[in-house]
């Protein structure tokens, strides 16, 4: 299930719904990205229609490559505040190793290959976050 939304979402409720829809999996691995406290706000934009299609295609390939039962991505766009979830990604498989490896690959891809752009607001300063800069939404972004 792939969803891009401009509204806050509850990652725990979404993950529970994902888990309840599973039939054969013995492992669910999930990652929630949240806005760190050092920025006042983040603004995320995407390429409507294109970003969704690219994530769906990548998730389909992941399912095949890793033999997943299911994969999920929910990604926020718009303006969000510290503590709010930016992204929830999850992978489910019969055994844990496939789900862990698939989720790691998915998150690396989302960081660098999915068309999202992130603007950080701190006081009066607006700064576009790009690879090589420190990302208040999660890991340091790097190639």
């Amino acid at each position, binding site marked *: 299930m792939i969803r891009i939304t401009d509204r806050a979402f509850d990652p725990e409720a979404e993950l529970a719904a994902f888990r309840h829809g599973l039939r054969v999996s013995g492992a669910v691995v999930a990652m929630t990205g949240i806005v760190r406290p050092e920025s006042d706000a983040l603004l995320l*934009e995407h390429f409507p229609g*294109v970003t969704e299609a690219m994530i769906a295609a990548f998730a389909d390939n992941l399912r095949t490559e890793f033999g997943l039962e299911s994969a999920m991505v929910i990604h926020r766009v718009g303006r969000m505040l510290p503590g709010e979830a930016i992204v929830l990604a999850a992978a489910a498989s019969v055994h844990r190793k496939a789900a862990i490896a698939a989720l790691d690959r998915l998150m690396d891809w989302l*960081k660098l290959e*999915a068309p*999202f752009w992130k603007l950080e607001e701190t006081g009066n300063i607006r700064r576009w*976050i790009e*690879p090589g800069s420190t990302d208040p939404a999660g890991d340091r972004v790097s190639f």
Partner: protein
Amino acid sequence: MSRVLFFGRLRDQAGMSGHPVPLAVPLGLAEFREQVAGSDSGLLAALSAPVIRVAVNGTVLPRGANPVIRPGDEVAFLPPFSGG
């Protein structure tokens, strides 16, 4: 006629999210960028930077791709991605 779209910091720099581009014949990407930027040399430099990727009709091309732009195409200029 074709159309150009700007995202992220390129939209800030262009001052708009996109606009129609009169195009009667196919153009190489470099010529298309020059037509889009017009007299704005700063915008031309930004669009031409190696980190900028291009999508044609919703397909994001590999870095360094050099597509031919045809009348009717929608061309998006994409700064480095930062998702997740």
